[in-house]
């Protein structure tokens, strides 16, 4: 939990986590090597210098280190895994549900494990989705519309095939759909992460929630306009949040737009670990403010109450997490014992900051 100087507690659900393997042994395509190199540039480009990892650590860090980074310093209370397969680039996949389960099964009370589907996998993909539901009781899926698959370099969320899978999600009770809509990479001639396909899908499946990851950056404008009209469209802040480090003013503008168009109930914090470590990122997010000029322009609040929603409450709502019950549980769960966090959860809402 994050505790403010005034002693207010903010329960942190990091909604965008990966346990990936980009070790050289796992890379089978030049694209896989360039992918991790590009991630590493994101990492060093936005991480304070004294918090940067080496490229070797970054390629494959493993479950123990991840547990330490998320919980060891108590920055994160719970996390949501978002798999990214990229099997055309990595022999065993980059970040599969099985990889993530390694940690989620060790601390089941701390993690939400999301699955994935690819409509191009047809019947087999449908069976795989059912397996993920059965085996891991997934409540959400991460979708990578620009992922390569054989001859195909991408797919659309509003295609007939995708709708069949969304139907299946609705039937299985997989309610949270997380399309990755980030920087344009592939396929070749098109905008692989165009957000327009979210519009039709969200209208057609009002019972599902669409959490657009990376708030569509660099398609923030299209994303906000769609989200303003579709109440079941949410924004995941992974990648946007680190802007607060070096470009607080730009971050303020982006937050201003998001709060203006979507409001404070439809935004989810995510570190995108291991792109960035949540400890300094949560801290930076908490310290971030809008300038007076931005407050005037957007007419929105970005105070503790708004931040509490974005850091945890909104994700809790989508994933049916009872924060108070979790706090109670975390006073003595395995992880708390392992990392000596009992004091951290001892307080309760009436706690006052320690005066020693």
């Amino acid at each position, binding site marked *: 939990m994050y505790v403010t100087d005034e002693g207010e507690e903010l329960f942190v659900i990091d909604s965008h986590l990966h346990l990936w393997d980009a070790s*050289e042994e796992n*890379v089978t*395509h*030049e*694209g*896989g*090597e*360039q*992918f991790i*190199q*590009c991630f*590493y*540039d*994101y*990492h*060093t*480009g*936005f991480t304070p210098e004294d918090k940067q990892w*080496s*490229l070797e650590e970054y390629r494959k860090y493993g479950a123990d280190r991840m547990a330490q980074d998320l919980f060891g310093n108590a920055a994160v209370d719970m996390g949501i895994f978002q798999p990214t397969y990229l099997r055309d680039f990595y022999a065993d996949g980059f970040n599969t549900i099985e990889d993530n389960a390694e940690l989620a099964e060790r601390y089941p009370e701390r993690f939400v494990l999301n699955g994935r589907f690819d409509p191009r996998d047809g019947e087999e993909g449908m069976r795989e989705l059912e397996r993920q539901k059965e085996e891991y009781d997934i409540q959400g899926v991460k979708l990578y519309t620009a992922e390569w698959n054989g001859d195909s*370099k991408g797919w659309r969320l509003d295609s007939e095939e995708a709708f069949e899978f969304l139907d299946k999600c609705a039937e299985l009770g997989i309610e949270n759909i997380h399309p990755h809509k980030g*920087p*344009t*990479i*592939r*396929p*070749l*001639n*098109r*905008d692989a992460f165009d957000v327009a396909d979210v519009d039709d899908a969200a209208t057609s499946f009002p019972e599902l929630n669409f959490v657009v990851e990376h708030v569509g*950056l*660099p*398609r*923030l*404008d299209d994303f*906000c*306009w769609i989200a303003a009209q579709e109440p079941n469209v949410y924004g995941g802040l992974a*990648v*946007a949040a680190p*802007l607060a480090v*070096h*470009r607080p003013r*730009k971050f303020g*503008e*982006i937050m*201003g*737009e998001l709060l*203006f*168009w979507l409001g404070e109930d439809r935004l989810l914090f995510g570190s995108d670990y291991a792109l960035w470590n949540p400890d300094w990122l949560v801290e930076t997010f908490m310290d971030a403010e809008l300038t007076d000029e931005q407050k005037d*322009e957007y007419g929105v609040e970005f105070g503790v109450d708004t931040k509490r929603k974005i850091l945890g409450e909104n994700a809790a709502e989508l994933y049916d997490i009872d924060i108070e019950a979790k706090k109670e549980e975390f006073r003595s769960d395995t992880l708390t014992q392992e990392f000596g966090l009992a004091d951290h959860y001892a307080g309760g809402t009436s706690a006052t900051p320690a005066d020693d």
Partner: protein
Amino acid sequence: MSSDRSRAEGPADGDDASAEAPGETTPAAVRERLDRVTDPELDTSIVELDYVEEIRITAAADGDGDAVFVAFTLPTAWCSPAFAWMMAGDARDEVASLPTVADVDVELREHMHEREINRGINEGLPFGEAFPDADGDVAPVRAELDRKARIARQHDATGALLDAGLTGDQIAALTPEDVRFDETTDGTVPVWVRDGAVAVAVAVDPLVRYREKAAATGLLDDDHDELFRTPEGDPIDPDDFEVVRQRTRLAGVNMGGQGTVCDALNDARHAEDRPPLSTFSD
């Protein structure tokens, strides 16, 4: 936060660079042409963005005119191939338009598709031929980016008009003829309102920039007379002026946000202590 990395700027052996005699190509002239090339996603000059790494000028092989070599690197190897293609092609066309230039050789460096792009651009191939895997041309992507640039520029232009005292209703009703570019003086242009009864002086630069993209996106020669439009290209209902203005603001914030990301990647990529990245080999 432009980094302090040094950028080589040709020609490598100096002699030709100092030659300013008429009829010869200078690095400054080449640079001025490249300054007209924009990163289409950011609507900002590739020179301003610090992408251009090298300019080299030599005599053309057939001895008639100059040969210009231009090398540039984008913020990430993963930058969209379509965007990279547009920048490389625009750079070639702009430099080739200098009357003293006979040959242009453009080199995109450290990009995942540098081979296809460099070959395609320098051999004058269409995109589909350079990328047999692609399922179309880059024209629709360019049109979409032009549309976004138009919207962001509209925000600056309508901002200038509001600053000059025009109302939303008046701005929504303006036609291209109401802005008298031929009467520009001291950085302002007269804009006629109230059925031509009054002219207001407005900062000209944002209007010129807007007009350029409005023309590129076909708004100045379609069936409507209105100068400004909704993001979809329709005339603005005066009741919606405010929400259209908010949407145009958003387009600019989006570009600025992405520019920030690109800038950080560019700096990370060129940082002195960046570890050597392994090269994939089968």
